[in-house]
């Protein structure tokens, strides 16, 4: 089937979409946006977190067809040209990135948290990011990154 969807502000069209495939697969394999990562395919790890109509969701749990006529924003759409989003900057500066596979999802989820809660407490951050698994960093630097980004917004 064909799916029409706005991705990172651009009207896009994906063809030959299998009816059972996920938004994640469509983004990665058909729309040339491999930034969102496929790690668990069951909504447990958050590596594929994207905005769907401004709400962060696991793209692996959205059927591609459900994105028809909706708007998606991925990690590739956070920076303005060369200018990183403050959350992205903070992740680099705080050392919140290691292998980087969980990073795209974490950046989107943290971005949403700071949009809703400009100055989150530590427990709020831990809770908001609980669905984003990271096996490398031990989470500490991710917490630092969110605090740093909050202080700059």
């Amino acid at each position, binding site marked *: 089937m064909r799916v029409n969807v706005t991705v990172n502000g651009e009207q896009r069209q994906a063809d030959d979409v299998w009816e059972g495939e996920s938004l994640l697969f469509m983004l990665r394999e058909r729309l040339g946006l491999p930034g969102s990562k496929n790690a668990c395919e069951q909504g*447990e790890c958050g590596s594929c977190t994207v905005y769907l109509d401004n709400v962060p969701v696991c793209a692996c749990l959205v059927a591609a067809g459900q994105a028809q006529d909706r708007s998606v924003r991925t990690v590739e759409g956070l920076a303005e040209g060369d200018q990183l989003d403050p959350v992205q900057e903070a992740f680099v500066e705080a050392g919140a990135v290691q292998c980087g*596979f969980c990073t795209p999802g974490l950046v989107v989820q943290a971005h949403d948290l700071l949009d809703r809660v400009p100055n989150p407490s530590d427990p709020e951050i831990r809770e908001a990011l609980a669905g984003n698994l990271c096996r490398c960093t031990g989470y500490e630097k991710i917490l630092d990154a969110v605090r740093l980004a909050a202080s700059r917004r």
Partner: protein
Amino acid sequence: MIGRPVDRVDGRIKVTGAAPYAADTKIPGVTCGYLVTSTIGRGRLTGMDTAAALASPGVLAVYTPFNPLKLFAYVQEQNDERFPPLQDTEIRFFGQAIGFVVAETWEQARDAAGLVTATYDQQPPVTEFPGRTLQAFEEVEEVVGTQTVGDITFTASYTTPFQHHCAMEPHATVATWNGDHLTVYTVSQGALLVQRRLSETLGVDAAKIHVLSPHVGGGFGGKWGNWAQVPLACAASRALGRPVKAVLTREQVFAMAGHRPRTKQTLAMTCTEDGKLTSIVNDGVTSRGLGGNWSESVANWTLTTYASPNLRVTKTVVPLNLGAATVMRAPGEANGSFALESAMDELAAQLGVDPVELRLRNYATLVPNTGKPWSGKHLDECYRLGAEEFGWSKRPKQVRATADGDWLVGTGMATATYGASRGQASIKVRLHPDGTASVSGTAADLGTGQYTVFAILAADELGIPVTRVRPDLGDSTSPAAANAGGSNSTCTNGPAVQVAAKAVQTELITLATTNPRSPFYGKEVSYRDGSVSSGGLTMSFGTLLTTCDVGGVEAVGTSPRLVDPEHGFRSFGAHFCEVRVHRLTGEPRVTRWLSVCDAGTIVNAKAARSQIQGAVVMGIGQALLEATEVDVSARFTNANLASYLVPVHADIPRIDVRFLDHSDPVISGLGAKGIGELGIVGVAGAIANAVHHATGVRVRDLPITLDKLL
């Protein structure tokens, strides 16, 4: 610059989603391969029906043991599968690769794989541990001194379950041939590991195999070996004349891409009345998956940790019908330390001695099993600083002495040590006309920070900003550097980067003085901070190269393997933690953490701290959550991230990490030892000890789950 916190050079491309991982590789005309796996745990394949799959839309080929892709036997041991896939009909484990379907698209390949049927001559799989076994045998035994002395003071057994690495990135390989040259994009802890393996099994000259693995989404040992998708994608691509991409599903990663084996350790210790150990015996039992050869020397950590005139460790291997067991972060040490550190705590309680004090009384000033001196050891300082910073002296002597509402509060500590070594590495540094320097070696960055270590060390040696250094990793055409494993990347590669960065300065000076276009032609020159000078004239190397119209100068530097039979080399540390256990439901939670590490020179404080924190969190998982279950059919039943629980953000307290930063001059001029694995060693023991302190319940079988604490 060395030791200061530096931003990760690969940070920007990772926060924007631009860093290319193996599965992101786009090659025109790429086809997709999907693995068919066995649905029994032991037996023989008697037949496979592939007709429906072959007739399915888009299918290009279906390979099976009855219609195999030729792969030669593996020669080297790489801690992975003993046998290349599809070359025989024996089923050694559930989830073993028995077929490979290649189709135009991924969903076509998956659909067709679902149509392949297999018949088996089935036998009951062996999964009991230690229990009934196919062939149990005692292996190595190391003895120091005589055996036990006097009456056993303490004895107990400790067990650990199967665990999985759960790196976030599943295993992926993309292969493409150009004539008889193979290019392969794959997950790996070392491009040369892939190149050697493929050269063996494909029967192709290694020089014609180009492996690219620039970014790897975590490894922890699980990407040291090359699993079935690697040779299959390459061989199928050769047979079909098309690029092939193969990605393991998460369940396939669990089944076939390695796991930490199950272990049991029985410790017997004797000591004097004042708590000086007189003997330690540790009988270790480890599982080995019949898919592979590797097993843990789980008791060996006992040989090097505490001073004791008598030491004996044994290793018994129990083969099971499972995929290959393989190295997983601190293989042997993570499990080994759980037993010994728990036992030391139990012994301390039995003697009425403080656990830190007992460790100091048995401090190994020499390597316990060899009697040789250490290259450098400041573990006593780790204990003392840790105890002081943590407030250890305020710890109640009694168990179950502190409660906060319904939560019982306890504290515990443990020792961490991990072996250090320096291998041989070669690194190339090239200076470019645009004023940048590139540093290349076949090393891998699995998230460890190796890119940034290369940049820091080269920048430091060349006297230029880190931002002007471009590290290139994960490319088999670079000079042979250390693979990412055994915590020796920085220790091995670091000195080679320094050597190469010095050598390239000599090359630059030669150019400056011998190239007729050079303003320094025939003069005496010196190099400093990225520039060549003579008399009053100073010119940056970029300008000099441009002036001479030369595309670059380069040098390869080699740092040799360290052969030093006179010393013992290890990194050291001490963990202190607070645990809370709910009085009524038994839920255990870690609420405070301090690790003090003595790991030689710290090259990048920011990345190093994160490495230790990450290892501690993996240790918290090992202690409280992580266990893979096996059912009667020999299937891992919780082979996904919803059922195999790893710690989430909300489970983790602040993890305080301190580095002593004593350089180790014996290991290298750089003085760096390893930190990748040190952090997990002792974590489970510290937590078990804190849980005991909180509740009075001693759990000797990991993980420490709530039902064990009632």
